[in-house]
């Protein structure tokens, strides 16, 4: 713990909760961690003067200065790698990538460098790096800007991947990621940035990595999801309850690596049916791993095959009607629930 930390501990911690957006919750987590630990610094395109393309870092450069909130050129491979290197010397870089789509140009630094360091060097060096970036689609951003590669990172040993679906988890998981000694990818989500929720003000509020949450209790079916798919799932569950008396349990994964299969399996053992939902393409996606795990762990409990819903397997088209048809809409999810129950 740095001097800054020691110091901070003495202040009386704020308590209670406050209603704020997901975006504000992320900002609060960043501000708290920047204050707590001087090793923490932010780096990315437009995080400073522009105040963040999605305004998550708004005000932070003014508060912490251009060294700790560092604008970069458009050079993802370069500055993600710079984050890896800085982390190797004990800094706590929090690198922002404008959207997950752009991480493709920095893939090698994430997969073949950050993820390898701990094991490949026999524990002689660590890489406490955080990369924050939103996935998601739905605003007609078209094929190159509407992707969710969550599973690729979740399938990479050496990385940890968290995917907050609400403001409280956004704060708690981002703080957990920053305090973690390993490289953690924090996958945020474009549509959720504006969603509101109650967020604990305690600067020590941290959500443990590797723990899913039962976001809604139910007895008829388990909907397993993460990120924005959880928001959709919760709406669907409420709708089905009021309209059809179907009680769906919604398990929000929160972490993709480690994956909390235990919580998922416990739920399915109770409901005997499962639907997995994701924003990305299901084939070879996150729901593939979920369906595989559930089908094995709950082999004797399942009354019906595990279903999956995700983005239609096409490069997302621009036209609104095509985009809507391709998305894992609440209607498609609801229909999937009904088909699993029938």
């Amino acid at each position, binding site marked *: 713990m740095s001097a800054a930390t020691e110091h901070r501990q003495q202040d009386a911690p704020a308590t209670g909760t406050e209603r704020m957006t997901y975006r504000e919750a992320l900002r609060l987590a960043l501000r708290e961690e920047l204050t707590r630990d001087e090793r923490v610094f932010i780096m990315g*395109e*437009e995080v400073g*003067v*522009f*105040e963040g*393309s999605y305004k998550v870092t708004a005000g932070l450069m003014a508060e912490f200065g251009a060294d700790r909130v560092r*604008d970069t*050129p*458009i*050079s993802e*491979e*370069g500055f993600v790698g710079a984050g890896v290197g800085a982390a190797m010397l004990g800094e706590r870089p929090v690198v922002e990538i404008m959207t997950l*789509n*752009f991480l*493709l*140009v920095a893939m090698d630094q994430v997969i073949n460098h950050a993820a390898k360091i701990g094991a490949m060097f026999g524990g002689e060096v660590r890489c406490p790096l955080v990369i924050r970036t939103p996935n998601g689609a739905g*605003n*007609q*951003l*078209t*094929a*190159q*800007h509407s992707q969710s590669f969550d599973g690729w990172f979740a399938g990479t040993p050496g990385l940890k991947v968290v995917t907050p679906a609400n403001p409280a988890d956004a704060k708690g998981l981002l703080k957990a990621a920053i305090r973690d000694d390993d490289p953690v990818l924090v996958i945020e989500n474009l549509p959720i940035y504006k969603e509101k929720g109650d967020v604990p003000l305690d600067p020590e509020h941290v959500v443990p990595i590797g723990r899913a949450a039962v976001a809604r209790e139910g007895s008829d079916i388990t909907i397993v999801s993460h990120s924005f798919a959880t928001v959709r799932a919760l709406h669907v569950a409420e709708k089905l309850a009021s309209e059809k008396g179907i009680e769906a349990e919604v398990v929000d994964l929160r972490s993709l690596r480690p994956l909390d299969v235990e919580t998922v399996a416990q739920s399915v053992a109770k409901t005997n049916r499962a*639907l997995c939902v994701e924003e990305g393409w*299901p*084939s070879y996606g996150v*729901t593939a791993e979920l369906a595989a795990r559930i089908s094995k762990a709950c082999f004797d409990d399942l009354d019906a*095959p595990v*279903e*999956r*819903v*995700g983005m*239609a*397997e*096409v*490069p997302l*088209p*621009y*036209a*609104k*009607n*095509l985009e809507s*048809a*391709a998305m894992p809409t609440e209607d*498609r999810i609801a*229909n*999937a629930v009904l*088909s699993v129950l029938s």
Partner: protein
Amino acid sequence: MAIAPAKTDLLELYEQMLLIRVFETEAERQYKAARIGGYCHLSSGQEATCVGVIEAMQEEDLLVTGYRSHGFALARGTSPEAVMAELFGKKDGCAHGRGGSMHLLDTERGYYGGWGIVGGQLPLATGLALALVRQGKRQAVVCELGDGAVNMGAWHESLNLAALWKLPVVFLVVNNRYGMGTAVKRASAEPELYKRASAYRMHGEAVEGDELEAVIAATARLLDRAREEREPAVLEANTYRYRGHSVADAGLAYRTREEIAEHQERDPLLRVAARLRDAGASTDALREIDQRVEERVEQAVMFATESPDPDVDSLAWAMYSQGSDEQFERMRPGSPFGEQELVFDGGLGK
């Protein structure tokens, strides 16, 4: 192609520049009226570069750009109808509503697309030039990119390949002073971007991008070298972006109103209009152009409004080539809920 355009040419070029200006203003209006979605990047203020570069290109030359592409498409001759319909996401759009603002194209006019990943179009442009060489064609490629894109690794790898293989490509760096909110000097250790060409023993030069004739002359010269001697080059066109980075950005967090006003005083359209008057063009003639342009843009909006939406069951249209349906036939069993209806039954390679 005229190095120093005669008055008649100049009138035409003025009309093209005005078309872009008026079209972009209308696009912004339509975006705010929610008839256009996604990201929408306007070329307002950069008209002389768009029109000058295209004017210097020969019919067979090829064009690749980033996502700020309306101006280039219009200058290249793609109809305002096809462009506006694309922005509206309609069937008659130049990409049939699949691409939107960032992904215009018009292969008949050698325009191989607007691309959305910063720097991603450079390797492609290099490949187009390589294909031209392999096919023994005497054509060249213009690859547009922004000042922010010169810091991507793709710039380095593409310029090295183009120089090493002597490929007929001109890398047009549209330096509009900012990459989103980042001023050039905050992003590039060498802010005179054209000088970076020397790292590849490639010719590089800068041109006043708001001076139509200068842009035409420089581009024509470099394209000739590319065609005749297979010498690639970097052309940096210094211009200015009037509007925000995209329609969503007010564009004032990182620059002052004064700075914008200053540039507007040196507006590329005003400059050409002035020269036309000096050359004896009547106010009526210019007003006539104004009217014609307004009407064309109105027509484009009408056309786009009436053009049908793409049919939903063509969701997977052209994702794969003809005959791929058969290859995918056996992927159905156990497919995720809805995928079958949405992709397979809708057809893949139609």
